[in-house]
């Protein structure tokens, strides 16, 4: 039942004529979360609400909205939860900075280790040249 609705909805605006637009729609459908299911993007969900959301994506893409505008539209309509790509704000700056902070911390550890290990690096003995 749900799949029929999903399919009819998915087929109704049908495949977008412009392949670039179709690709954008598919990409967006993979990063917008179905609000009813457990951790599924609307691209893969068979719930009716996901079909409605897919139709919305396609309408917006066809109307010429940019990806950012479409994300903002969904965020405003369904809340932050709907975006698998969380926006940068007061709550998520730490998330988006985390990779860089971890890189910096890791680099500091490696450099400290280097300083300690470098001291002991005497020239090779011939037998150590063996791999």
């Amino acid at each position, binding site marked *: *039942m749900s*799949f*029929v609705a*999903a*399919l*009819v909805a*998915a*087929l109704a605006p049908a*495949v977008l004529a412009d392949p670039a637009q179709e690709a954008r729609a*598919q990409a967006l459908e*993979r*990063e917008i*979360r179905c609000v009813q*299911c*457990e*951790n*599924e*993007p609307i*691209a*893969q969900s068979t719930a009716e609400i996901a079909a409605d959301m897919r139709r919305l994506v396609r309408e917006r893409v066809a109307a010429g909205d940019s990806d950012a505008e479409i994300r903002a539209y969904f965020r405003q309509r369904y*809340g*932050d*939860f*709907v*975006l*698998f*790509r*969380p926006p940068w704000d007061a*709550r*998520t700056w*730490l*998330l988006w900075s*985390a*990779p860089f902070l*971890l*890189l910096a911390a*890791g*680099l500091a*550890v*490696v450099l400290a*280790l*280097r300083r*300690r*290990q*470098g*001291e*002991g*690096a*005497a*020239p*090779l003995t011939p037998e*150590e*040249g063996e*791999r």
Partner: protein
Amino acid sequence: MIAEIGAFAAVLALMLSLMQGAMGLAASKRDSRVQATAAIAQSAAALVLFAFVCLIALFVRSDFTVATVAANSHVDKPLIYKIAGAWGNHEGSMLLWSLVSALFGAIYASARGKQGLGLWSRAVGVQGLVTAGALIYTLFLSNPFARLDPAPMQGSGLNPLLQDPALAAHPPMLYLGYVGMSIPFSLAIAALIQGNADQAWARALRPWTLVAWICLTLGIALGSYWAYYELGWGGWWFWDPVENASFMPWLVAAALVHSSIVTERRGSLASWTILLSIMGFGLALLGTFLVRSGVLTSVHAFAVDPQRGIAVLVLLGVAMGAGFGLYAWRAPKLAQPSGFAAVSRESMLVWNNFGLAVAAGVVLIGTIYPLIVEAAGGGLISVGPPFFNMTVAPLLAALFLVLPLGPMLTWRIGDARAALLRLAPAAALALLTLIIALASTGWRAVPAIGLAVGVWLIGGGLVYLWTRMQRGEGPPLAKLAILPLAVWSMTLAHVGAGVLTIGAVAETGFRSEQAVALAPGEGVAFAGRRVTLLEVGELDGPNYTATRANFRIDSAGGAQTVSAERRFYPTAPTPTTEVGILSGLDGDLYIALGEPVRNGGGAWAVRLYHNPLVHFIFLGALMMALGGALSLLALARRSRSAT
């Protein structure tokens, strides 16, 4: 009666495990005590095994007076899935966790290496406490032997999605991996107590890190393969929290596999290897927590119970508190022998560990961040594939860029110029791939770079093999034949990483999908082929009914047929898909059957996917696991020739 005997065996095993902990940590040097400790570890394992066999027997007999069996089995289920049902649920899987922990403990206790009696004894002791913790949790919070009164006439059945050979094998494999990390943890704690982590210690550690890593690799690959052909949406990896839960310990285990080589061969990085061992087990416990607590909403989490989640968290807190506490206290006292230069094999392995550890950290933060925000009252947010693809993928790509250099450098002080010169052919090949991919895909940089990185890994692996061959004498085949097993294992694992990269990049970057409505006799052009629906019929399976659609695929290479099904299990509310997959050299044509279209004149909803090179993903993972297995074999041979 079987249930009570099983529970009794588990209780006995718990007592023996506690004894194993006490005797092991006391580390008596008296021969009789040493032998008794080993015997206790073996008996505990035998008892948990017996309890587990009892549980399987209850499932085989469909004894619905036992709550776990009633909730997860069904008389009509095929025997193999009755057996698999024993671990396809929360209670049984926790007993399996305990079983693996006890078995690994017994195997470790039985084969005493050269790591010294004190280390051996304390590691056996810590492992005993790990097993005891798992058994306490199993018996008191998720007892698989609990009775049900009144007993139902029929069980509620296993989730039909889980009635699948790959998924029957997936949890045991993953648990072997998760729990495999407990032995490195026990060895790390023992080393910290002992204040000694020398090369013999690393020698004892290596096979266990390999076992854990191989099993995690296979377990994740099985789960991914299952998701690919069972869930019916053409994908294989979704950065789902449950997937991340197994990916984090995998990354740390991969780092540990490499750092323990440095510690064994050169005695360096002992302190870091210890820290990784503790973190790896911590992440394995966290993985169990994430999957078993249902704290994260997820497509894969079938078991949900917050109270149990808190208990796992307490176990995690105790293990990590003890681990990190001991580390902070004792690690500075460990000796730091033999240095190495900035350009050396060791140095490259440090960068390997840097990349893998940072990647694990990023996955960890991305996975638990929504929980933290929610707990802090910030509402619900989602962190999904875009975040991980943007952060982890470039990090791994950077790691793979320097990877081929590592094996080409000598220990201690390497010659970067010579190594780079030898790698020139691989670099040229990668560059060529980059240019061709860019030109033929309309200058899409990301997948082109990804493919080039994959080719670079494969080329680098082959250059290494070629370089090692040059040291032998005689005809090429003879040179290949005398190469050490370790060379083959490393080459295979690294080439496997390249193959996996190519598959992942091709599938993610170049897949196509289309939803269509087809009536029997109708066809549609898709991905350079023509897909025609031939007919749709009904059929009966052992415990389900199905709608089966047959398709004909016409391509330049001729016509082939493939069928896709929708299965209806009376025990499940929603039908499941059995997709039709037509594998070719260039990838899979993947067909998922939907429902008949209302007022569609006999048309059916059909989803078509073309997944280029998707088999490279599973092939690559298999090659990596095989590489690990060869390394294990090399270690076994070395220890046999040493004794």
